[in-house]
């Protein structure tokens, strides 16, 4: 819209028109409960039927003011020079709408029974659900067909004295998205738990333990949502991009257009499976003053739906089939704790949570490579990859004595790379996994709240770690992408400078944080992903600080008020991170998005 990133935020926020949305959402649900005690004691039947409709319409009204850019230099009289970057646009409109319909039916038999200390629960459940989209369907009839699921699920649960638990679950679920024979998936799960706190020796001897439960579960779950790709088992025969042939001699016409598979079928596509294991501990001590939960998990996703991009050409396809070929294993721990304590009139709560995970690609659609380090298999999802930088070239001797780099001309002051495969040439074969992944593998947070009389203080810290990203683009690559004027100060001050220019050999620093300045080296030697531009995405930030005072009730009653609170909230006040150029939490490696806003709010809250 308009002039893209040259537009200032004020214009974007206030001068570009308005939208009108109208949303209609009706949900109906009929439920029938029937007690079947007359047949078997503890048996109940529940059936429900639902019918939801949703419609929305959206009208966007756009306009655009005339916009000018102030140039970097002034005219001879010292006035700013303005360049027109967009003419005005009067209000125009665009409308769109959306709609869907959902129907579902659930029938459930439920049996609960306890004999002495034995507690048994059995559920058997049938459900079917259909989602129909009614707008924006395009021309392919595939898109107008309801998304449907049908399933039978069951659960058998047993516990003895709330001390030993055993559960068995299963789901047998079908999806309309797959070919008959591949529609249903079976997803069983078992779990067990032992609440040690219920054992007599604890109950009698260690009363300060309120809960001490160890649990384990193992199960499979499925996914039939293939990212909008409906009915991959169907093929499409039409004339799209199909060449034809002219059989007749020049001057005559006997031409036929072509017909063929514009999309081949992927007949065996079925559910993506995930095998999930979880070992957990729930602990609660000292009258629940301390509680925590820790889980160690291991998930193995198999049969991940992917395009098969690397079929040999001799197979002769003109379209790409897909299959359940990928596999990823992820492992990690996930925990949180809470401590609550009362010291006289001071009430303190401390909370924390942490998730640490790591994954590995076990299999995916990829072609052979002679260098195992170039395959994704065996590495993490979203692994950052690049060349290994060895600093900057000192001089021409250094260049002569190093392997040949194949990314355009280079000279002293340019980045020197490591020849990973030792073939004497630096090229894309030397790209390796470096750093971590672009998404953090460690996420944590902790906070505390303290109240004393009417005062309350809340703090919340949040952090992430074990991630890395490449910075690139015109922000850090000086004078690229058509930019020729301003560059970051750091690029200028911390760069490699030839002694011929500076007159000082010390400025030829092979370890300078930025290479020599050059023009339009966009695809050249320096400006490519390498450890030189790799940054650690670790950060810890003070997300929230909230200080408040609530006036005493007695005082308020006199002026007929219910409550009054004066407070001050600060968000994003401090960030500690090794990366300083911009907010590491913005995932933008180019540094061009608006950062998270640091704000301080003073407030008064009154209720009458």
């Amino acid at each position, binding site marked *: 819209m308009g002039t893209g990133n040259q537009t200032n935020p004020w214009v974007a926020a206030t001068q570009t028109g308005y939208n009108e949305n109208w949303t209609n959402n009706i949900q109906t649900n009929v439920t029938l409960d029937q007690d079947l005690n007359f047949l078997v004691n503890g048996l109940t039947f529940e059936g429900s039927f639902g019918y939801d409709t949703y419609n929305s319409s959206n009208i966007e009204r756009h306009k655009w003011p005339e916009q000018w850019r102030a140039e970097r230099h002034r005219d001879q009289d010292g006035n700013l020079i303005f360049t027109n970057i967009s003419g005005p646009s009067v209000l125009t409109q665009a409308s769109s709408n959306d709609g869907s319909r959902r129907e579902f039916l659930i029938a459930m038999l439920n049996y609960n029974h306890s004999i002495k200390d034995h507690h048994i629960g059995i559920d058997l459940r049938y459900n079917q659900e259909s989602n129909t989209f009614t707008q924006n369907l395009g021309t392919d009839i595939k898109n107008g067909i309801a998304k449907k699921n049908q399933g039978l699920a069951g659960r058998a649960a047993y516990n003895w004295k709330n001390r030993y638990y055993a559960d068995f679950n299963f789901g047998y679920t079908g999806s309309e998205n797959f070919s008959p024979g591949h529609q249903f998936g079976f997803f069983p799960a078992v779990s067990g738990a032992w609440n040690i706190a219920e054992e007599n020796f604890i109950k009698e001897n260690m009363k300060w333990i309120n809960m001490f439960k160890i649990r384990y579960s193992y199960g499979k779950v499925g996914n039939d949502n293939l990212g909008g790709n409906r009915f991959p088992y169907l093929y499409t025969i039409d004339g799209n991009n199909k060449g034809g042939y002219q059989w007749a*001699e020049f001057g005559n016409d006997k031409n036929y257009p072509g017909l063929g598979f514009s999309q081949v079928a992927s007949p065996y596509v079925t559910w993506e499976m995930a095998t999930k294991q979880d070992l957990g501990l729930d602990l609660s001590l000292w009258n629940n003053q301390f509680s925590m939960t820790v889980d160690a998990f291991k998930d193995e996703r198999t049969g991940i739906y992917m395009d098969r991009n690397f079929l040999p050409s001799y197979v002769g396809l003109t379209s790409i089939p897909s299959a359940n070929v990928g596999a990823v294993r992820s492992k990690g721990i996930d925990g949180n704790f809470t401590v609550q304590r009362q010291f006289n009139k001071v009430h303190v709560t401390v909370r924390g949570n942490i998730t640490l995970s790591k994954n590995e690609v076990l299999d995916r659609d990829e072609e052979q490579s002679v260098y195992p380090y170039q395959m994704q298999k065996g590495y993490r999802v979203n692994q950052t990859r690049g060349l290994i930088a060895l600093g900057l070239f000192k001089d021409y001797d250094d260049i002569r004595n190093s392997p040949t780099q194949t990314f355009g001309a280079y000279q002293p002051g340019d980045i020197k790379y490591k020849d990973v495969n030792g073939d004497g040439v630096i090229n894309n074969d030397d790209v390796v996994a470096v750093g971590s992944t672009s998404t953090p593998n460690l996420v944590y947070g902790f906070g505390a709240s303290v109240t004393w009389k009417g005062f309350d203080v809340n703090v919340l810290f949040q952090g992430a770690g074990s991630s890395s990203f490449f910075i690139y683009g015109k922000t850090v690559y000086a004078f690229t992408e058509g930019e020729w004027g301003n560059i970051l100060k750091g690029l200028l001050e911390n760069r490699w400078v030839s002694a011929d220019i500076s007159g000082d050999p010390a400025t030829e620093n092979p370890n300078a944080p930025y290479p020599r300045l050059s023009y339009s080296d966009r695809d050249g030697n320096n400006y490519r992903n390498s450890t030189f531009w790799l940054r650690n995405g670790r950060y810890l930030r003070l997300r929230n600080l909230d200080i408040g005072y609530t006036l005493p009730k007695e005082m308020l009653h006199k002026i007929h008020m219910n409550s009054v609170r004066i407070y001050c909230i600060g968000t994003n006040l401090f960030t500690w991170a090794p990366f300083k150029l911009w907010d590491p939490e913005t995932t933008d490696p180019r540094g061009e998005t608006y950062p998270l806003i640091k704000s301080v709010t003073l407030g008064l809250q009154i209720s009458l």
Partner: protein
Amino acid sequence: MLKKIKAISIFCLMVTLLFSCKKYLKTDEYFKDRMDLDKSFNNVEYIEEWLANSYSYLTGANADVASKGFEPFNFSDDIYYGDRDVNYDVTNAGALSYNRFSLGNYHEDEKQGSWTQCYQGIRSASIFIQNIDNSTVISDEDKADYKAQARFVRAYYYWLLLRKYGPVPIMPEDGADYTDSYDELALPRNTYEQCAEYIGKEMVLAAKDLPQSRGQLAIARPTKGAALATRAKVFLYAASPLMNGGKVSMDYKEKLVDDKGNPLLSITYDESKWARAAAAAKDVMRLGAYSLYVAPFTNSGTVTHPATIVPPYNAEFSDKPWPDGWSNIDPFQSYRALFDGELSAAENPELIFTRGQNQSSEGINVMVVHQLPRIASGWNTHGMTLKQCDAYYMNDGKDVPGKDAEYGKGNGSQRVQGFVTDEDVAEGKYKPLEAGVSLQFANREPRFYASVGYNGSVWDLTNETEVKNREQQVFYYRGSGNGYTNTMFWLRTGIGIKKYVNPMDTYENNNLANVVPKYEPAIRYADILLAYAESLNELNGSYNIPSWDSSEVYTIARSIPEMKSAVKPIRIRAGLPDFTDAVYSSNTALRTAIKRERQIELMGEQERYYDLRRWEDATKELTLPIYGYNVLMTANQRDLFHQPVEAFALQSTFAPKMYFWPISIEELRRDSRMTQNPGWLTYTN
């Protein structure tokens, strides 16, 4: 009692529910109106469209005769192209220049469209073959014909692959199952012999159901002859030294192996393969469907179609009518009309297979506008080497004086000096030369004048709107407008190409409509005749080989009358005396003569590039420097112009890795069992 009723009714409810739910996920009814295989083979229009698609992959990079953008293989040591060269024009970076092509400086990822395209065509045709039998809307005869057409084109794709890449993997009959894992899909290359046998068998199957001829509206459809002729060419290649125990390429043959190390070309010589090739060529000849085209003798001509230039008197051939002599034919017109669009495909009795109008953006018309001189707005960049120019005989069947003198070969004679004078023209000497033309071009065989744009030849250009721009004598002297300039557009040897150029053709206003449409001569009868003679010539023994349809058994042996029956018509049609009995009786002399005959007769038909390789002659022929006339000389220095020099702008060499085109690295990465042609990179190095 009440309890029971309740229980039963609930049970019934559940059962009905489950039964109604059984169809819940069924979506067939929505899809029944979509196009499916069954429908597409039960409608004549759709059947035609499937087949048209199966054939559509024959164009573009898979053409047999096309301009260099798709078919640099049309250019060898006979003709060259000067454009598409980054050394002359930076916008051509990445283009495959003639020098890069002929020096083997191309890489594994160039000109790979044909591989993909062939296999896509193979799959399309396989689907057609698998499904056409189930069709209920066409008669059994039509079914058989359609199926045979699909079978033909599938085998033809294999032939195109085999010729360019050497041995390739043969797909399962119903196509590779793309749902298999990459490991299961990995196929090794079949041997050359297996590929040749496969194509041969398929072509026999196709020939059984293909008709002998087709009308104007089906000129691009294959016939019985097209299938048998392709088979004959495949067998000729399989018998040739490169594929059949030849010693020159033995090192190469030992390295060209499949994933288990088995050689893919035959290491040991098997003479019976020549017999098989001869029998296959004879199968085409025995159809009786083809004959060489001849234009009638005429003694009153026009500028564009002059009166017949009668070859020098020869007691054996001058007085006899065709096919025993040339008394009633015009050899020049007989050859020229085959290619320049004057003769329609349906009228041409020697056209065996053609893609007809299905030519790409690099079609023969595009080739022609690159041959046309600047004066006709042509690109003036496709030219002929001196070697090719010299290969044409004199009109009495002798060699041109000075032939191959630059190579230190030849018969010791010197090139003719002097030029045609106005008086000569007035006296009617040296026809069809005009004044100022070197006498090196005088008294040459008719095919020379139909093929060579020699210095000072006349271009008719009758489609030019202004009369004054027609009938132009074009010289390639520096400074003459069509000679050397500092652009890309000059002939590196000072010799142009006239083959495929119609007297009307011009490129005025860069309009291709000024070029007469020309069908593609993919397989010509002359090619088959020469193949027959070439194969027989290699035999020492006698072989009994059944004909393609087993209706008779041929006795195949080196028989002079049999070889003569194939070669003589080509010589007579060209207005040349047949080879002497001394030549016919010598195996080596005839081999040399036939190779030269192919070089002349099939110039510009994408034969020479592959012929030199299969004969293993590439190591001798392509390593010679390329000679031409001295293009730096001006009109005042015309004597110097006509003293051949090494063409400084053209280079050529040969290394064994150039026997076959490399397989793309990408394909090697995707097929763990695929092996690269020797001398080219694989993804592991």
